[in-house]
């Protein structure tokens, strides 16, 4: 089977008209990662995920960036990035400033889209760092060198590329030194502080935002008020919002960077009509959307150059080429009913696109099967309609307190849908925000989208078997034993996607070895084999199946399974190998061929020739 990303990952019946799921590349980003490479970054450590192991701050910063580079190349490959170390022994930068080293690989500008090679070499940076770049404190008391100043200057020069209108420009600064000029004499310190801040301000005036990712010592918090609050331009209100606890653990840091790297993008502006005469303004964000491998670009197999695809509509009667828009027909009552494209879109256009409140229900009315597609996150905005946030927060609080959700009609999708608006309170952990406060809009199915499967499986007048108290008790024990510790939604990477990108990377770099990707979604075998777990499962099994686990009682076998059995029996009827040798497989019927395929766990799809070939290949092995 060909791995066709459109097929493999596509929802079975995705609506191509619905562009809601396709994130538009609204703008691109220019990002410079500034990494402090002073000796302090190497000797400060903090505990890693694996117990008993300490990791240096430098390692934390570098692995964070490595991860975010991968995110860039996968999701936002138009972004341009640069990596720049400061407090280095060697120097490499256009301005030829001491202590600043711009890391790059061949065939790439200093600031450019990330390439496979960049990612690969950056992954190995720690091994070669000492030899190639070296760490050296740049700011020492008796010199006038200011490596932080130089770094900001280099970064700003890099970010000169690109127009502000179409791009966001950002610097991410990784450091564990909260007082870079602390060791200086007062007069020099003041001077250096002033020039450095001015440098930062110049950059900000050019529309570049500077973001700080501070790393704290285990025994000493990173004190942002000493110097950096002025550098990144925080005022006292925002200071409380800034999370100084960041940087205790590698995971927290990665989390932080992941959250900050992707610029927030509004999927939709929505007008929420609460009642006649009162509408507020909301922004809708697509926080959850299935990630899929990028689209296929067809290439000429001899030159590997992209192929241009031209689509044409041809009338089968005359061979004439048809021009858009083409009429549509629906056969109905022995005639072909014609629709123009315009008429069809009129049919679908039944609403204004607003979100209209209809009323409220208790949360228990929202069933687990009331779902169709990923939800949309709503957060208020006072940008256009002042007072929106206040009304939103009031409703949000009331719904949480009264355990109710709102039912509304949303005209912004095709077709318009009934939606459930479920208020979500903010959830925070050490690493920062886990769930943002706001309302999640859940798209509800219509009556005809819901299928009555339960009815299919009920046997009138015959009571369905129900678990006994003992069985329930055993199930309860089993569930306690198999409790997932610290489970969080979306903790797993998508193994198919990971593999896909590993393949791309290997081919892009001409490597023979495929980077090992781990399938995190497999059950934890070690845990499952713990004696207590095995025992609980065994007891549950015993309570259900009794002593003889293989005896499944058949309460009225279905036709289907009978058919399968018959198939199995047929298997012995022919000597397929013999038939294959004499070329007589073609004399068998498709059903008979399929019997062989089914018995050998092979695909049964395709035409007869395909089936025969498949059998031949299988026998050949």
């Amino acid at each position: 089977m060909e791995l066709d990303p459109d097929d493999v990952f596509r929802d079975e019946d995705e609506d191509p008209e619905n562009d809601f799921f396709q994130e538009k590349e609204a703008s691109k980003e220019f990002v410079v990662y500034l990494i402090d490479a002073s000796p302090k970054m190497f000797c400060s450590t903090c505990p890693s995920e694996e117990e008993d192991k300490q990791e240096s701050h430098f390692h934390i910063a570098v692995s964070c960036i490595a991860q975010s580079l991968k995110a860039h190349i996968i999701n936002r490959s138009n972004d341009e990035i640069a990596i720049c170390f400061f407090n280095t022994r060697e120097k490499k930068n256009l301005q030829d400033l001491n202590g600043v080293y711009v890391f790059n690989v061949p065939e790439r500008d200093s600031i450019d889209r990330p390439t496979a090679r960049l990612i690969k070499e950056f992954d190995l940076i720690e091994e070669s760092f000492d030899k190639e770049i070296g760490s050296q404190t740049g700011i020492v008391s008796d010199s006038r060198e200011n490596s932080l100043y130089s770094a900001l200057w280099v970064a700003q020069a890099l970010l000169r590329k690109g127009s502000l209108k179409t791009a966001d420009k950002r610097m991410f600064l990784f450091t564990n030194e909260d007082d870079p000029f602390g060791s200086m004499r007062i007069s020099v310190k003041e001077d250096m502080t002033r020039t450095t801040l001015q440098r930062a301000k110049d950059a900000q005036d050019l529309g570049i935002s500077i973001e700080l990712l501070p790393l704290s010592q285990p025994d000493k918090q990173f004190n942002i008020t000493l110097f950096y609050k002025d550098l990144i331009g925080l005022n006292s209100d925002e200071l409380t919002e800034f999370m100084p606890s960041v940087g205790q653990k590698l995971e927290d840091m990665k989390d932080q960077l992941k959250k900050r790297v992707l610029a927030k993008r509004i999927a939709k502006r929505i007008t929420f009509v609460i009642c006649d005469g009162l509408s507020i303004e909301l922004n809708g964000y697509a926080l959850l959307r299935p990630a899929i491998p990028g689209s296929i670009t067809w290439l000429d197999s001899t030159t590997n150059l992209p192929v241009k695809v031209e689509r044409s509509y041809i009338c089968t009667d005359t061979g004439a080429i048809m021009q858009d828009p083409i009429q549509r027909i629906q056969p109905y009552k022995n005639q072909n009913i014609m629709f123009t494209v315009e008429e069809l879109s009129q049919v679908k256009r039944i609403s204004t696109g607003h979100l209209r409140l209809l009323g409220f229900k208790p949360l228990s009315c929202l069933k687990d099967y009331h779902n169709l597609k990923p939800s949309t996150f709503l957060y208020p905005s006072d940008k256009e309609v002042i007072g929106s946030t206040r009304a939103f927060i009031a409703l949000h609080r009331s719904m949480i307190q009264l355990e109710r959700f709102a039912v509304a009609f949303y005209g912004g999708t095709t077709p318009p849908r009934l939606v459930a608006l479920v208020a979500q309170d903010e959830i925070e952990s050490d690493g920062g925000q886990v769930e943002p406060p706001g309302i999640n809009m859940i798209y509800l199915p219509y009556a005809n989208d819901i299928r009555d499967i339960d009815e299919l499986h009920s046997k009138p007048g015959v009571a369905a078997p129900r678990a006994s108290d003992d069985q329930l008790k055993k199930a309860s024990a089993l569930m306690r034993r198999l409790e997932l510790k610290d489970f969080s939604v979306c903790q797993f990477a998508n193994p198919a996607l990971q593999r896909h990108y590993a393949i791309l990377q290997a081919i892009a770099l001409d490597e023979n070895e495929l980077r090992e990707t781990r399938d995190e979604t497999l059950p934890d075998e070690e845990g499952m084999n713990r004696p207590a777990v095995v025992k609980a499962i065994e007891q549950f099994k015993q309570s259900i199946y009794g002593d003889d686990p293989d005896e499944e009682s058949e309460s009225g076998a279905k036709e289907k399974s009978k058919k399968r059995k018959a198939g199995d029996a047929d298997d012995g009827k022919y000597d397929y190998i013999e038939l294959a040798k004499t070329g007589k497989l073609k004399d068998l019927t498709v059903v008979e061929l399929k019997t062989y395929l089914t018995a050998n766990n092979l695909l049964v799809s395709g035409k007869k020739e395909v089936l025969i070939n498949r059998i031949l290949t299988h026998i050949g092995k």
Partner: protein
Amino acid sequence: MARNREGLVLVLDVGPAMRSVLPDVEKACSMLLQKKLIYNKYDEVGIVVFGTEETGNELAREIGGYENVTVLRNIRVVDELAAEHVKQLPRGTVAGDFLDALIVGMDMLIKMYGNAHKGKKRMCLITNAACPTKDPFEGTKDDQVSTIAMKMAAEGIKMESIVMRSNLSGDAHERVIEENDHLLTLFSSNAIAKTVNVDSPLSLLGSLKTRRVAPVTLFRGDLEINPTMKIKVWVYKKVAEERLPTLKMYSDKAPPTDKFAKHEVKVDYDYKVTAESTEVIAPEERIKGFRYGPQVIPISPDQIETLKFKTDKGMKLLGFTEASNILRHYYMKDVNIVVPDPSKEKSVLAVSAIAREMKETNKVAIVRCVWRNGQGNVVVGVLTPNVSERDDTPDSFYFNVLPFAEDVREFPFPSFNKLPSSWKPDEQQQAVADNLVKMLDLAPSAEEEVLKPDLTPNPVLQRFYEYLELKSKSTDATLPPMDGTFKRLMEQDPELSSNNKSIMDTFRGSFEVKENPKLKKASKRLLRDKPSGSDDEDNRMITYDAKENKIDIVGDANPIQDFEAMISRRDKTDWTEKAITQMKNLIMKLVENCTDEGDKALECVLALRKGCVLEQEPKQFNEFLNHLFKLCQERNLSHLLEHFTSKKITLIPKSEAADSDIVDENAGDFIVKQESMLES
């Protein structure tokens, strides 16, 4: 009757008590038959009505009784006539007996199909079940119903009852209703029968499953607790979006004389090396490439085959977790249902034990699933319990897909607590909001819940089929306005709103909103949505382009903003032209109807002038202004003329737009002329 066909008898109550809802019954049934004509055109349909003055059924003829039950149509393949029949149901005059009608329907099904086609025979009863049933000749009604139900079960006839009760005026009825409801539940416990209670025309439309889809399992195999403990399960889709039928493209190129023309359109793809070249390469000379950063990486099918992620079919349990750990908005897709293999009693028990215990302790299970062998990806999802309320239905699980790490975008949002206090509600405002959330109640009790997704029809589909039907009668039929029944879905229930009028008014008063004055024109569109009721339905349905805030018409309400937004649209070249034309028309309208509202017209003229200068269309404006001026003179609208003078509107001279043939000095001529005229 072939394997995948259904025999259906509609048993419809047309008695006097049903009269008010009969149009909706007609709509629902007509939709059902329309869809059969498209999707299941070999299905067979019979129609029985009861509550009619006359009697016309075979049982009455053979053995007597069964009065006021009329067979409108015997069971046969669905056709246009059937669709016509249900659209013109007779209006009955007597209170009918639904038991009699059901027996007639059942008799038809048995006579037609005998004992064959189990499970493919269905009766659908629509009634208000508010009229008394007759006592049987022997035994009690309960016995009688049980016998009928058992017979139905034995014959494999399914039954669906839709009981429509809106504002029943029944004090005397109460006992009858109670008895009838009891009888209907007897059907459910003895046969495959379900009863749906509906209370509004909207849910009546939604209650009838109009599209018959043969359920297909997505997966049959093991739910693996560990390698030694496996439960046999089947997985179906519980929710799947019903879409408009896929319409074929039609070619009208064939000459009308060609009787054998197929009128089909073929889509052809050409692969070219470059856009300019005419050289076309064969499909097999192509190779797939994937974007990776700036590069496109070619991958051969062999490479894919050897390297791709490989999976084995199966459902594997990862463990259990607190239900509160899985927030509702993480559900990613349509929902599946996991039912135990009906032939495996132990599996039914195992699912029952786990599902019930999950419900009891508020736990859910996390599972990893591969539905087909060799499928290129895996899904991780959550099983939640679906403990059956019916004795004869096995317990099962719902399955929802959860996101992978790559699917999540974690943007930080400001805490509400940290927002400035002017953005937060005060105590009094909070109390007002609490009150609204409490009182604007759609589910006062479980029975009274309205707008249940399970009973809410899709308005777009309804409109499409209605239009299809109209078009089948007349090719140039126009699109009908949205069915009024759907107002209840698209707008607040007026009854609910008016009952809570004071609460709504307080809410409106407490939460004042206003447009941000700093923002300019085009973006100021939000508050403009007029309260419902004030504009007529057709307008509201179609004026706004739902997708974008793009303006395509200069409306009466905010003509200047509309005009400015429209003239600056760049997605098509003719917007400028359109905007100018529409603005002119609007000004003419304002001038013609004008009494003392010259100001508005004047502002519009100024806006038009500005737009024409910006777009360098001086002629358009100058000609129009001359025309307008003449019109004012003819009608002697002197107050307007004066207005015009005072605001000093001039023609657009050369200095403002190069194309103009008016020199600067003459730009004021227009006014000079006017003044001289006034003097004379």
